[in-house]
């Protein structure tokens, strides 16, 4: 979750806003604006190295959802590395 929070924070104009947002709180309802949501999505794409699908974009509404998206890929990478090993 720390990694997701760092990723989200780097997309916010006011990073301390995230300190007031719980893992399951809706980001928009908690004050994150639509422009910041776009930057968060771009940060996710940067992290994943690919374009997000429409469903992934639509589901990117909480800290936990962002964590699930990037951790899923991290797990995938770990598995891939293990497979290579």
């Amino acid at each position: 979750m720390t990694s997701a929070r760092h990723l989200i924070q780097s997309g916010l104009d006011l990073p301390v806003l995230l300190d007031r947002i719980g893992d399951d709180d809706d980001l928009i309802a908690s004050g994150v604006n639509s422009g910041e949501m776009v930057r968060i999505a771009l940060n996710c794409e940067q992290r994943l190295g690919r374009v997000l699908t429409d469903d992934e974009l639509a589901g990117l509404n909480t800290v936990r959802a962002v964590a699930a998206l990037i951790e899923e890929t991290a797990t995938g990478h770990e598995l891939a590395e293990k497979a290579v090993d």
Partner: protein
Amino acid sequence: MWLSHVLRRNLARDPEALAMRDPRRDVSWREFARDVTALAAMLADAVPPGERVAVLSGNRAEVLETYFACTVAGVVAVPLNPGLADPEIAYILDSVAPTLALAEGPGRERLAAGHPELPLAAIEDVADLADAADPAGLLDRCAGLTAPVAILHTSATTGHPKGVLVDQRSFQLNTLSWLADVDVPGGTAFLNACPLFHGSMVIALDYLAAGATVCVLDRFTPAGCLSALQTWRIEHAFLVPSMIRLLLESRALASTDLSALRLVAHGAAPMPAELAEQARAQLGVDLQTIFGITEGGGPVISLRPGDKPGDPPVRGATCAGVPMLGTDARIVDSRGQVAGPGEIGEIHLRGDGLMHGYWRDPGATTDVLTGGWLNTRDLGCLGADGYLWSVDRRNDLILRGGQNIYPAEIEHVLRQSPCVADAAVVPASSTAWGQTPVAFVQPSAGSVVDEGDLIDLCVGQLAGYKRPSRFVVIDQVPRNPAGKILRRQLREQAERLTAGNPAESEEAAQ
């Protein structure tokens, strides 16, 4: 009569041609006319002539159908930004007292909870109304050319939004001036990526009038926009500079086919020269600069792709172009005299596209509209060759990602905190958004300002784009002897603070 004329003419010319499309459906001119007349019949029954209809919806084809239907029914559309906080929506509804609201699902839930007395209709069901309606002859009953048909809300110096009252003459003039500057063959695919509650929605009306196809994007995301540009074979688009920057940063750009795209018109915020160069090179398009103002009826000055304005007459000025057909512009100096080339003053506009005035606010109307001239309060100057240059936006206006914010809106909210004795908000430069608001707060005696409390206050009462990007506690908000905030001093301080912001520095380096 203008919008019904647009509808009837295109219907007669090619009823099966595509008028609009959005991700849910394609709308031919035949379907467009059917939906509009059915909705107009419903509105004419439910809403007395001249009364208001609130429209609370994200982008969708039915929003444009609603604007047409309101003119046919002789009622006034009041678009609302779904991003506004509940108190902001309540302020507008109290002001315009609508008889009915057309809204999408989430909007209906908000209105039902906060305004249970307001009758609601589902905007997504407009196409279904057509089955039950008998709209024969209704299109001939359209509101007159000079009757008010819409109230568009803008940020205001008072701290509350002002309603800009516009008529179809304004729409008509805007279409003529757009088509005098931009070549729009029938069937041109135009992408509407900006919110349809925004003053720039008149550009979509211009394209419909020309028999083009208006493609409505639900909401802007870089990948979604690029996908729409490719899939819908978009030829013209209107974007704000922040959107263009995000498109250029998107990983999807490299694999997107933009071969149909010819023209990107941009406005609502200054376009940095380096961004314009990148856009031309990477998107392979011509760029057209649009200077617009809601009170002026939308786009009023434009710089066409082939225009060569030369060097700025004063340092730091940005070329807005020349007044569009039907608009006169002049520069007025601080003594109220018309200024000559190279002299800085306020930009005044005249023409048939100007607003009627601010909704039920004759004092504010007189402040800006005198003798047929609209004082934009923007600072500019004329070059020797007739080009008009923008020097600074109206007095305290903050332009964040193409959306206008007046400091008073935020200051009004911050002063509600018992810990805040005074507050002043100024713009600071942002690579991503052009500008963001920075709030300076003066604690009340014996109080300690908690940034978290201020954040909560803003989140509860302001749309997200208005939330300050930084709160700075200062001993005293600087004011002159007349009590006016010395904003220049605070702007300089905000710029110094922002220059030290790692996020901005990182963006600037990219």
